[in-house]
């Protein structure tokens, strides 16, 4: 799924203006360690563009965990929540971007939710506290997630844009920090302060 997402980002970059250039954003914590699962979003001053819609989006529940932990979807995407566990799950979100509750009481039962506002949607299960996941509903085509080395790659980063970095444990209001990208900046290093992950999320992290 991540692979297909990367692929789509790659495809979108081909359609970028001529001013666009590759950009690597490296996210580290206060200890200098790479931070994965951070979501980097570029907001160009001009020439904003929505992310192209993929065929389907899903956040499954398997082995009492959400998969994936962090999902990036464009505004208006419909995401399915298949229950692959033999147990019941009660998936909820109190996030302002999308509030919903899905009671998936049977195996292989799947329901879908359409996310029509940009923002971060925190997912939880009311039965299993340790289950946690995030869906980033973005309105920008330049939205990427850091890999295990903490690097988010953009092949066609637009010049003159503001960069925002989000991470579920980032210690900042709204879990987001932003800054302007310098002209011609091809490699951006972002150091973030993270709070300790909740005990039940340690396994996933």
């Amino acid at each position, binding site marked *: 799924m991540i692979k297909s997402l990367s692929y789509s980002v790659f495809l979108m970059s081909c359609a970028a203006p001529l001013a666009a250039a590759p950009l690597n954003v490296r996210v580290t914590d206060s200890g200098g360690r790479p931070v994965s699962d951070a979501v980097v979003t570029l907001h160009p001053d001009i020439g904003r563009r929505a992310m192209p819609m993929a065929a389907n989006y899903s956040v499954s529940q398997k082995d009492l965990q959400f998969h994936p932990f962090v999902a990036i979807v464009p505004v208006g995407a419909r995401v399915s929540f298949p229950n692959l566990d033999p147990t019941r799950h009660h998936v909820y979100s109190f996030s302002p971007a999308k*509030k919903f509750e899905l009671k998936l009481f049977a195996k292989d039962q799947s329901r879908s939710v359409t996310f029509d506002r940009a923002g971060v949607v*925190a997912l939880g*299960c*009311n039965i299993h506290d340790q289950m*946690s996941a995030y869906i980033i509903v973005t309105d920008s085509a330049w939205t990427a997630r850091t890999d295990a080395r903490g690097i988010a790659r953009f092949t066609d980063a637009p010049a003159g844009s503001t960069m925002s970095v989000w991470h579920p444990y980032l210690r900042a*209001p709204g879990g987001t920090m932003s800054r302007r990208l310098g002209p011609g900046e091809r490699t951006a290093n972002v150091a973030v302060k993270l709070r300790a992950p909740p005990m039940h999320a340690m396994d996933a992290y």
Partner: protein
Amino acid sequence: MPRFSSLSARLTAQFVLLFAVAMVAVSLSLSTAISGIASHQVESQLVSSGAVYDRLWQQRSGELQGTAQLLARDFGFRAAVASGDEPTMASALNNAKARLHVPTAFIVTIDGRAHGLAGQEARDAEQLWDALDEGRTTGIGMVGGKTRQLVAAPVMAPALLGWIVFAADLGQPEMQSLKKLSAIPLDASVLVGVAGQWRDATGGRPIDGAFLAIEQHSRSSAVFDIEVDGESAIALAKPLPTLVGDRDAVLLLAYPRSEALATARRLQAALAVMTVLGLALVAFGTWRASAKITRPLERLDDAAGKLATGEHVLVEVEGHDELARLGSSFNEMVVQIEEREKRIAHLAFNDVLTALPNRTMFQHHLDHQLKNLDDGSVIALHCLDLDHFKAVNDTMGHPAGDELLVSTAKRLSQAARGHFVARLGGDEFVVVQLVDQAREEIDRLATALLEAVSQPQEIEGQQLVATTSIGIAVAPSGGNGAEDLHKSADLALYRAKEAGRGTFAFFEESLNKRAQERRRVEQDLRIALEEGQFELYYQPLFDLEKNKVGSFEALIRWNHPTRGLVAPAEFIPIAEETGLIVPIGCWVIREACRQAAEWPDDIRVAVNVSPVQFHRPGLQETVIQALAATGVAPARLEIEITESVFLKGGEETLRLLHNLRSVGVRVALDDFGTGYSSLSYLQSFPFDKLKIDRSFIENLLKRAGAAAVVRAITQLAQALGMETTAEGVEENEQLSELRSQGCTSVQGFLFSKPLTAVQAGSLIGGEQRSAGRDAA
């Protein structure tokens, strides 16, 4: 070191001092050890109590946190927080406060706002965001001006929405309940450090000056000392987490030192009491022991003191140690000293030769008897003197004399059995007789004494009959004191001797008078010598051949200033007894020579010389000096002596006479025909003249025998070439008879009584003138 008068006191003091030093040293080290152990114990108690408090604190926090977490997971609550549903949040908080007995509960959301509180409390709560965001969930914090224990739990949905916070009070009740759980009475308080000062969060009182100490020890978690409310305490500071950035907090556990060390203090007090008791015991024991050791010494000391005062004392001897030997030696010494004293006393009061009491004891005895004399009783003092004892000594030797004295002492003691007998010295003995009434007893004893002594006895192989004379004086009539009585008895003895020896005589008052008279005369004689009261008279001796005065006999006269002329018979014997005759005789010789120097050369002067003068040294020198001083020819001086000169002296007297003769002095034998009239004297010494005693001249015409004696004497003298002088010629018939018998000179009142020097001078002058006429 002070001076002690007793050995036991010194021993006690020294031992007690020694023990005191040792015991005090032991006590002090024990006391220090107790203090150390107690401190250590208190510290470990404090540390363990601190651990208990830690657990209690954590338990309380945990409980609160548990409930907070429980609430934070409630789906409805989370939904309310996520949706910012204030009324639901408030009601949920109130519900939790009531159910969980938490006084304050509120919510701090991730956007930094506080819910469930208002005003200052809300602003305080919003200050907690940083700490909560850092993940701190328990700690001390200020809410509404009060320091409280805060416990927070995150509200996740599932992303962090905020924190639910429970705040528990930290007041005295909470601290008291903590104290109840401790094994030791701890003073627990939570301190918050603000601006360099610790403030007691529970009571609000500031703790001054201990900021650094508490800060340091809260890190080291070691026990330290602190002053709380002016009282010393042992303290332990445990750091507490805070939920406010710039503040430190500690849990201070203080153990007041007085309480902590109370047990140790009691132990130390008991130790002090035991030390004092031990010292008292040592002092008492040492005193008893030393008293026991020194008791023999004290006895010796005491005994020596008594011995010095003359008391008979022996010490008790126990055991066989050095002190016992010292005691035995002391006792032996006491016995020896007493024996020596007895011997000395015996020597002091007894005569060595006869073992009779001596003069000293006699005087004591007599004094004592006189003082204790009963009315009507009398004491008779018998003074004895062996007759002619000197002759025995001289002829038989001193050992014989001593033997005689010893036998006499025995005889006297036997004869005077029951009476006090003493030897005063030489051959002098006394018997003190105590008589009730009868005077006869005195006579009887005196007679018995005479008889006892006069029994014949054998001394050194020779038969000897000793006799004694006894003078008896009776007290109280014979004298008051012992001395008077003895003198009286001596006078009586003198009389007994006069009475012919071998008898006894009682003292009479006349004897005493005579003795007094003699003493007075003796004194007067000395004065007379000094003041020149003596005068020489001269009686002419008429030479029958030449029909003229051939010589004068110098006769001494004493012109006493009050008594007038004193006869020589009255004072010469006294002068002889006292020895005054020597200076008087010396004066007579010089005066006679001086006078003779004024006379013609053919007239001699005759001087009487006493036997006493012969027996004292200096006579020869006196004569030679007198002759030399006056220039009188020695042949003009005639010494007249009596036969008694030969009774004493013997050879010595003869040698002196020969010496005088060799000088040229003439020697005449006076009073010839009386006394011993031993012809052996005439043979042994060539006298120049014999003076026929006046008793023969008196009877010359009356008794035929007298004439025959005179004739025999003159013929004997003629045969031996000696002159003769008849004394006391008073009648012409006597003169004719003497002339016819060939007597060479006469002397007497018929011619002249003794003349003064002036008269003698004129007699000589008259004779020379008539002789001149005859010649013309």
